[in-house]
């Protein structure tokens, strides 16, 4: 159990990076994890050419996995290419959280932030 809830993860959920609303943003979305009550609302500011993420702000409540994942992810994506983020999956999020695996029942918690960011980026692209 300590393997899952290791110190770094608990700290990541406690000190949520980029937590708060962005006033200046290009896209936003809110997602729910209907089965467990997790929720994240994300706002993203892109660089002027629209190809990179300049800043991210988010708010939300939920389990440690969803909140730690969102916090670490929000930090990771800043400065990254939109196309690289669109190619991310569960493996990369596990790496950000220093986890080797996750139970199928927690996969949606793990991916809530990433799918929401992708949703925003996709809407900006279309």
């Amino acid at each position, binding site marked *: *159990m300590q393997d899952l*809830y290791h110190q770094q993860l*608990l700290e990541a959920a406690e000190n949520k990076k980029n937590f708060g609303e962005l006033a200046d943003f290009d896209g936003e979305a809110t997602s729910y994890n209907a089965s467990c*009550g*997790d929720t994240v609302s994300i706002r993203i500011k892109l660089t002027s050419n629209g190809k990179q993420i300049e800043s991210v702000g988010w708010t939300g409540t*939920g*389990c440690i996995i969803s909140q730690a994942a969102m916090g670490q992810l929000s930090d990771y994506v800043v400065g990254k290419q939109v196309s690289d983020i669109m190619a991310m999956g569960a493996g990369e999020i596990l790496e950000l959280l220093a986890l080797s695996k996750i139970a199928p029942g927690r996969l949606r*918690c793990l991916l809530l932030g990433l799918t929401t960011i992708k949703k925003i980026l996709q809407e900006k692209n279309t």
Partner: protein
Amino acid sequence: MFDEERVRRDFPLLWRKVHAKPLVYLDNASTTQKPQAVIDAITNYYTHHNANIHRGVHQLSDESTQLWNQARAVVAGFFGAEEDELILTRNTTESMNGIAYGWADHNLTKGDVILVSYMDHHSNLVVWQEAAKRTGAKVVFVNLTAEGEVDLHDLKEKLAEGNVKLLTLTYVSNTLGSVCPLQEIITLVDEQAKKGKIKPRIVVDGAQAAGHLPVDFSRLGVDFFSASGHKMLGPMGSGLLLVRKEILESGEMRPYFFGGGMIAAVSVEGTEFSSSLSDRFTPGTPDVASAVGLEAACNYLSALGMEAVLEHDQDLVAYALEQLQQIPEVELVGPLSVGSGSQLRRIGSVAFLYKGVHAHDVAQVLDSEGVAVRSGHHCTMPLHVYNDWVATTRASFQVYNTREEIDALVSALDKVKRIFKV
């Protein structure tokens, strides 16, 4: 009361370990484990009797038909209903959809109200939202009291508006555990009817009541009753809908699935439906094995005695409430006492918030100790929003659970405190 240890021996799955710890299965409100008698009934059906019903003149078809009819008779009898009043379904959700498509679509219109409550399971809510869209009726919510019971005062006021055509009630809440005072509510409905108001049809979601307390449909005074077989020791894919006979006979409720097996005659011009009520609502080849399995579950519960099953449930719920209330981080939801006699307040489960820790994280730690519980919304999102709960953790019980397992839950909660340094 019966001997739990003897009962436990009948459930082979309970013998296994989880994470090298003895399994403590407290997720019975989601689905229950199955006794050997149910597993054997299904195996026996497929090993010796499998054939399509009603269609063949050969021996196997005869046997299968007889087993189907016998299963229907036992299941109907278990719930105090006539065989003609029983429609076998896959689960409560399918039963609710049956009422919506078979009854609501033909009897509701613009201006009618479907009265629901904040505690209703999505299966007893989403179907009505959709039926409202189709018919022009409106879904109105009845408030709850602070302890999570239907607010009878608010219910009375909403009934007095005179436009309620359908009233849906949750017999036992899957999240709050609270028991609906059906008799009191039926009296309220009758009083309104005497004043010349429309008498609404009453739907009861019995998913968490079936297999927990005796149910006598003939004396319940409601029009529709839905339940899931798999939540009462029966197989997955077994459920039931009871409909008062006169509603079926008069054609007030119509078939909602069509095809073979439910017809009297089919011609190029059209179809005459079967005059047999039991056939009219069961088109296509039914799941005979599940019906036979559900019959075995009913027989198993009847042998224990439903009064004894209820007594055992009440002992566990009261003990769980008492133990959990001693943990400062635990905030229980729903009534804090079980009540008694005709004033039963709580059945089957205890759900709670754990201070500072999300329900999913609580459940994950409990799982590491072999304790299986449910966490999240439990398909009652409006209830969670109404109370401003992010998510709750629920322990729910069945005939094979013991006080020692509740102790195991309580000590596993200690680990939650340690890991998250609450």
